[in-house]
């Protein structure tokens, strides 16, 4: 419930920041659907933790630490947040805003950037959503349910 309220508040924040598209996504995904999914997950879980299978936590810990360090190392190269001298404010934004009415002919620049200039990104995102659905289906979907039904008569 708190997550939903938080998402709704940040959606209003995005509206104030004139990022209507992001606010739209935040309101529908964050406040709407993910709250329902969270409640669904809560309904599936039990109040007691199952005793985990006995294996050493060292290797996963090592992998997580190395990945985390690599990600932190990667953030050092990111230009400082909100700096007007960042490269994105000098070449891309101006070009997109000035040329997209002639090149794409669509009033909403966000849509033309997302679907046309950044078409590869959006294709990747759609594939990520696709992969996520397959992952969820493998984890909690059909096959497991059939097995648990078979177990029930015992």
């Amino acid at each position, binding site marked *: 419930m708190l997550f939903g309220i938080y998402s709704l508040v940040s959606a209003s924040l995005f509206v104030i920041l004139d990022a209507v598209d992001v606010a*739209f996504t935040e309101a529908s995904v964050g406040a709407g*659907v993910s709250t329902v999914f969270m409640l669904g997950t809560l309904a*599936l879980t039990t109040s007691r933790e199952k005793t985990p299978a006995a294996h050493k936590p060292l290797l996963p810990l090592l992998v997580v630490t190395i990945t985390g360090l690599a990600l932190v190392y990667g953030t050092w190269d990111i230009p400082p947040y909100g700096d007007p001298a960042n490269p994105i404010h000098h070449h891309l934004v101006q070009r997109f805003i000035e040329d997209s009415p002639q090149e794409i002919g669509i009033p909403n620049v966000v849509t033309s950037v997302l679907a046309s200039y950044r078409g590869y990104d959006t294709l990747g*995102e*759609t594939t990520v959503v*696709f992969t996520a659905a397959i992952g969820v289906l493998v984890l909690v979907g059909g096959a497991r349910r059939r097995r648990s039904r078979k177990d029930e008569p015992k």
Partner: protein
Amino acid sequence: MKRYTIPRLGTKLLLPLILLFALYVQFHGDYGPGGGFQAGVIFGAGFILYALIYGLDHAHRLMPLWLLRIGISLGVLIYASVGLVGLLLGGNYLDYGVLDHHDPAHGQHLGILLVELGVGITVSAVMVTIFYAFAGRGR
């Protein structure tokens, strides 16, 4: 939820509006805020609301699982094949300008519309599928 009149009636009134609004967001994304992703989520949320109020069995009858599985892959397929059509017509992959011979802007328009449709189909099918998976697990 099946015995409560007000949520049932409210759903009946709201559901067509939600689905219509999703379609509006989908096809008006070129002019106003919104696009395939948001429209897909809203469309999926409509079916999730239906499943919450009327029960999973009714929802399965309305939106069967095989249709959802087709939808999940169909959206990505539409997106990728729009790119391939551009490639076959002599442009770059995902270059919509070549879709229309006379005016590249019209081609861009068409390409964006098709691509957003693909995104919308995949996202809405994924949302409903995930909800079915979670809600069906507990039974």
